[in-house]
């Protein structure tokens, strides 16, 4: 599904990504862990077509990222730190706008259903600017999946969420997984990573230093591996 070969990103003489090689199969849910400044979000931004790589190749669904950016963008659902929502628009208006941009059929019906799915149907026509952080994140999740993407790119999606919103987000990721979607999630939340992901990648200094499959949601195993790679504790 996603093939990354010798991916390098340089900015202001600093190497952010150093010859990253990565292969992700369709339907996998992958967590990317690592300390601050390791290059996790940059990797996600390159995949989301927001940043052009300095060198290397990214192939998604058999399509080269450089040559087929528009076709690849249709497959992606991107959820960064920011909500990417228009403050003075209601959830419905936001979802209809983004749905139209993605060419979603029956966009209004889809938008109403998504707002209901994230538990905010009472606030369908309220401006987003009046919402709490958790409510905004719920609508941001709905925005990211309005076009039923085949690949979900999530950048620290659990940050600042209450238990209800975390549960909604995890359910969205798991239901997308059931539909065959591939998920890449940058996170510092090991508990959530262990709970919903089936593979963990650890990034340090722009390189992948560990890549392993996780079984039985074993949080201790993830923590030990991370400490070994990042903090040098064995």
């Amino acid at each position, binding site marked *: 599904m996603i093939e990354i070969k010798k991916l390098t990103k340089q900015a202001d003489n600093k190497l952010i990504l150093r010859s990253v090689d990565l292969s992700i199969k369709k339907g996998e849910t992958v967590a990317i862990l690592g300390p601050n400044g390791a290059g996790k979000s940059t990797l996600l931004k390159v995949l989301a*077509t927001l*940043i*052009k790589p300095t060198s290397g190749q990214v192939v998604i669904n058999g399509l080269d990222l450089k040559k087929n950016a*528009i076709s690849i*963008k249709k497959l992606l659902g991107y959820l960064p730190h920011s909500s990417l929502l228009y*403050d003075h628009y209601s959830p419905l208006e936001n979802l209809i706008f983004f749905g139209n941009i*993605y060419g979603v059929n029956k966009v209004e019906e889809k938008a109403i259903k998504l707002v209901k799915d994230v538990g905010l149907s009472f606030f369908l026509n309220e401006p987003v600017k009046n919402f709490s952080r958790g409510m905004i994140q719920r609508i941001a999740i709905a925005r990211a999946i309005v076009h039923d993407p085949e690949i979900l790119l999530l950048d620290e999606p659990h940050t600042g969420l209450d238990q209800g919103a975390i549960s909604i987000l995890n359910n969205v990721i798991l239901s997308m997984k059931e539909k065959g979607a591939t998920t890449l999630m940058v996170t510092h939340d090991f508990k959530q990573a262990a709970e919903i992901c089936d593979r963990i990648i650890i990034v340090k200094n722009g390189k992948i230093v560990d890549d392993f499959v996780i079984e039985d949601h074993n949080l201790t195993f993830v923590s030990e591996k991370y400490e070994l790679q990042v903090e040098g504790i064995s």
Partner: protein
Amino acid sequence: MNQMRTALFLAKKDLYSELKTKQILVTQIIFAALVIVVFSFAFDPANNTTKAVIPGVIWVIIVFSGILGLNRSFISEQRNDTIQGLLVAPMEATSIYLGKFLANFTMMLIVELVSIPFLFLLFDFKFLGSIPYFILVIFLGSFGFIAIGTFLAALAANSKSSEMLLPLLLFPITTPILIGVVQATRIILTNMEKFSSALAWIQLVTAYDVIFFVVCFLLIDYVLEV
């Protein structure tokens, strides 16, 4: 075709936002009204020489109220990083440019539609020239100014002092357009005998509009990269 469709969605979104917030258009119209009122006090409408000031006043209104709108055009997309939402969507950077251009141009035309008749009314100006050519000059001048301004607004939006940077970049580049349209407006409004000269200015502005619109279209991809 798809490029135009997404551009229209974006323009519609911007205009609908404006309808809800009334931040830009109201400011532009208030600014235009202030300019007209100040100039009407400074120049006696009963005096014949006042006619010579009108072309300049029209373009002062368009340029400065235009900048008010252009400044907000891309800065508004920085709140909640909504520009990233547009960049990750399956649309070309040129669609974003075209959508923003259409929204800015529509708002500019609304300001002109309100302010120019008000200006003529307050200055008791009797229109003796050609109305279709006058409309053409206003259209061409606004088109070029907004086309270049939208591109430079995208460029300046990444700077911390974008509101200062935009006029600094915009005025030198749009000077040929402004000279051309002010001259053409002056001839069309006051001295139709020299119409051939106005036509030459119109041709110059048209060529400048086309060249810069194409250049902006080609370069916008590099400007909008995160």
